[in-house]
């Protein structure tokens, strides 16, 4: 597991790369990611194999965008126990029988659990890949172009910046505490209250100073995003290619068709 500040910083660093995917406009990337998520959630709860061709999208983004697989795994890792918990609950509640190839019967819940895990992992990977290539500013500019009200975008941008700040201040406080409490494991219980209070006050005052700096540089009611040029042919091709591919995956059971073509059986 890793500290959230490190994860946020790594996302920002990754988004500064200059690869083919990074050059695609954030709005087009956002639309493709959104369509991917919508199609993934539209699959039947037992459609494990039919969902597999969708893996191509996150895999291609990771390779083309040069996103380290370790980064994806480390960022997703904290959420995995929660997904597994839901998946296992699914397996226990869905009691209908499912006959496997060998004649062994299992609860259908295990199949839907597998589908749930696959669905969640693919969705999270797609979102992370989008953020790691477009960056948070890319997300904000995509939302702005989609005419999402300025208030929500500003709120989101400030929240993101505030998380950064909270983590930084927490880091400073914990470092100062550790330096003055040698040999002590963690933070002693009686210090939790004062430290949390200090954390809040320091973060609040720092946030105020940053806000003042923003005001001094002409911030009004909204944060103006970095407008990119108009979409080029490659951006539009990107959308049409991927959306077309996702729709194909959704409408036709590609693995089944492949199996029919190769071994000539649909069963």
């Amino acid at each position, binding site marked *: 597991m890793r500290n959230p500040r490190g994860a946020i910083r790594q996302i920002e660093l990754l988004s500064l790369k200059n690869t083919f995917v990074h050059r695609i406009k954030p709005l087009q990337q956002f639309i493709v990611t959104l369509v991917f998520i919508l199609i993934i959630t539209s699959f039947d709860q037992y459609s494990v194999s039919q969902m597999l061709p969708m893996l191509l999208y996150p895999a291609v983004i990771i390779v083309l965008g040069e996103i380290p697989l370790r980064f994806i795994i480390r960022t997703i890792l904290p959420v995995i126990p929660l997904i597994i918990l839901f998946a296992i609950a699914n397996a226990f509640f869905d009691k209908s029988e499912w006959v496997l190839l060998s004649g062994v019967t299992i609860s259908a819940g295990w199949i839907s659990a597998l589908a749930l895990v696959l669905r969640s992992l693919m969705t999270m990977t797609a979102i992370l890949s989008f953020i790691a290539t477009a960056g948070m500013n890319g997300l904000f500019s995509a939302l702005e172009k989609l005419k999402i009200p300025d208030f929500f975008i500003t709120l989101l941008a400030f929240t993101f910046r505030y998380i950064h700040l909270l983590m930084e201040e927490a880091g400073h406080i914990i470092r100062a505490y550790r330096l003055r409490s040698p040999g002590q494991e963690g933070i002693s219980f009686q210090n939790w209250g004062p430290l949390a209070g200090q954390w809040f006050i320091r973060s609040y005052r720092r946030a105020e100073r*940053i806000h003042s700096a923003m005001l001094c540089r002409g911030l009004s009611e909204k944060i103006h995003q970095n407008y990119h040029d108009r979409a080029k042919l490659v951006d539009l091709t990107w959308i049409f290619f991927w959306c077309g591919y996702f729709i194909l995956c959704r409408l036709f059971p590609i693995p089944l068709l492949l199996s029919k073509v190769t071994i000539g059986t649909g069963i």
Partner: protein
Amino acid sequence: MIPPIINVKDIGYIYPDGNEALNKVSFNVSRNEAFGIIGPNGAGKSTLLQLLIGILIPRSGEIKIEGMPVDKKNLALIRKKTGLLFHNPDDQLFCPTVRDDIAFGPRNMGLNNDEIEICVSQAMEASGTGHLSHRPPYTLSGGEKKAVALACILSMQPEILLMDETSANLDPGSRRQLITVINTLSQTKIIVSHDLDFIWETCSRVMILNKGSITAAGETGLILSDRFLLEHNNLELPLRLQGCPVCGSYTVRG
């Protein structure tokens, strides 16, 4: 007679906790002048800068920038004309890259992409930060952060620069670079610092603030060479005037 670009008259400020930061402070600054404000800790120097740009509003008195009173009605225009360089550059840099941070102000001014690009390039050239353009601000050294923070202000092409402890925490090389950059800027400058050698090299006139009041004001050379006055205000002579501890000789530069 040319009217002053900054006119401060009898201003007073009391913090919500009852601490009186400024009391009947008055001074004028002429266009293109470099004006230094020195004084001990807690003298009200940073508060004064915040009042000049309208972050704080004075309890009494009046501040005018180019004849406009600093109030809510004029705030947007005053902030276009005035740039404040914060004491801690980390408070000022919040965008993912240096370029984004420098472009933040011009973008808020409603400029188009080409104009923003020109402002950013000019500011980076003036501050010597061109090579840092794609770096995230948190990966920069202290000196680089200060230079980028200065570029952020310069990109808005302000007529007045307010600088709060700009030379603090800089190594001698970065400090020297900063002095060179500041001396090439033609804008009106108000520089707050404890570094009296820095003030000596950058300002033509200086004012001493102590416990919220002005205790002295005048030509830099005159004020900074008055040992008694400085010591009375919890300051000491600039290093260049202290003489060599071995032979007692002086080397005065600037």
